């Protein structure tokens, strides 16, 4: 579904995303210039506030239109009377959003490659340290895009869809912080939040340390969310 690239909104998102990414990169370089550090540029980049703001804000913006717009315009009627299955529609919309999301990160990858190419190989770290965060972006992105799909399927209003998905995405992100806020949190609580701690995941992945829990938890949650999206979508379509 190439609808994304036909829309001017896509380019606006791309533009602001580039600015935030650029700031984040500049910030990383600036920080490392100020004092010697054990951290690589990759680490600083992926653990900066700029990065997280861009990361969290981008999902609602990408996903808000997916289903809400179809219901609002009534194009759901022409879409669903074409010979396509409901799950195909859900899956292709999810994939389209995911691909668009991934393409947003490409320029930042270019920064690192050029930066390493210009001679600061050691400041980037090993190849694994560079690729691991991108792998994590893909896996966490799947989950958050699916969250956005679900939010968009609930309503015919893009703004409402964006708000729901923003609340869900940020709410989920803040679960990480429970451990920082609650002193002496129980081991059980720590175990649970370890699964959803996106900040901590990034911290370890950008050091090149892969955590297998991530590979199980996010894909299975993504699948669950997409099944829910499918159900909501079908329910609303048949009631329409």
């Amino acid at each position, binding site marked *: 579904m190439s609808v994304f690239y036909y829309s001017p909104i896509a380019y606006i998102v791309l533009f602001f995303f580039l600015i935030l990414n650029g700031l984040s990169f500049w910030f990383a370089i600036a920080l490392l210039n100020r004092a010697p550090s054990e951290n690589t540029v990759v680490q600083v980049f992926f653990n900066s506030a700029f990065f997280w703001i861009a990361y969290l804000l981008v999902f609602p913006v990408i996903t808000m239109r997916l289903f809400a717009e179809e219901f609002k315009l009534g194009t759901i009627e*022409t879409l669903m009377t074409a010979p396509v299955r409901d799950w195909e529609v859900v899956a292709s919309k999810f994939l389209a959003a995911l691909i668009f999301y991934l393409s947003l990160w490409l320029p930042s990858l270019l920064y690192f490659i050029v930066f390493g190419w210009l001679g600061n190989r050691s400041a980037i770290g090993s190849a694994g340290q560079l690729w691991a965060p991108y792998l994590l972006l893909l896996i966490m992105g799947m989950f958050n895009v699916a969250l956005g799909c679900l939010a968009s399927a609930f309503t015919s209003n893009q703004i409402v869809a964006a708000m729901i998905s923003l609340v869900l995405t940020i709410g989920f992100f803040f679960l990480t912080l429970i451990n920082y806020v609650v002193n002496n949190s129980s081991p059980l609580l720590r175990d649970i939040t370890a699964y959803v701690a996106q900040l901590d995941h990034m911290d370890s992945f950008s050091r090149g340390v892969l955590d297998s829990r991530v590979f199980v938890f996010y894909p299975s949650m993504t699948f669950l969310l997409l099944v829910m999206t499918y159900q909501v979508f079908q329910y609303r379509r048949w009631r329409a």
Partner: protein
Amino acid sequence: MIKVEQLTKKYPGVTAISDLSFEVGKGEIVGFLGPNGAGKSTTMRILSSFMPATSGRASIAGHDVFSDSLRARMHLGYLPESVPLYGDMRVSEYLRYRGSLKGLSGKKLRNRVEVVKELCSVKDVENQLIATLSKGYRQRVGLAEALVHEPDLLILDEPTIGLDPNQIRQVRELIKSLGERHTILLSTHILSEVEMTCSRVIIIHRGKIEASDTPENLVGQIRTSGTVKVEAKTGSDDPVQMIEKIPGVKNVSVNMEAGWQQCSIRVEANSDLREAIFRLAIARHWVVRELTQERATLEDVFVELTQADD
């Protein structure tokens, strides 16, 4: 081509259509008429497998619209009432996208897109954003979209709504020419259009079929109880009293305009009372300037069938 058996659709609290059964044969152009809220769009939405029926069955080209929905949809081009389009796509882009969604690809896709652009005369706006198009163009883009995969069956929900008279004529001509190769089921409120284009009419009211016949036969049935119009100067006579004495007259209503009595006379079936009225006028020395038996139209059929029990 279409087969509908005992189709019923209930919304919470309302029965939109109940126990609807009809068939549309290959090559027919069928007009689907009824007042707003009669269940036309509901029926069309079920046929296009956009939503399931509460009970009953419907099939397109032998494929059940629910259990074999994908194959049924392959045979179908559907234009919903609101003509939903993606505003930020260009016309050609949109048609290509819809064509590929409906299983076309490569050379065939390019060909078909060109053909339908030509057919629906949207060639001159092919690179415009759909959001900037006028209502008439939107309607034709919608029609082009419905046609892009060469469906055997077209279901058009009010294809001429909101168009100006010239555009209505163009769309009508288009539908007529499409009728040579496609089966068409269309709903509309413009009855003259139905009389001109459709080979058969189905009138539904409150979710039930009231009539299903050729336009000529329907009009023929109703002409049997028609109206005679008389416009005369009757001096001191009371025309209502005198005309009502003629056998066969049901009732008379009179309207006075600048000294002329305009009488509208409902007459019983199979009678032509013009002669009797003429003789009466001569006997009473009325000055008559109009005496006509009104031709019944599909509109009369429609009104009679759908207002009878209100």
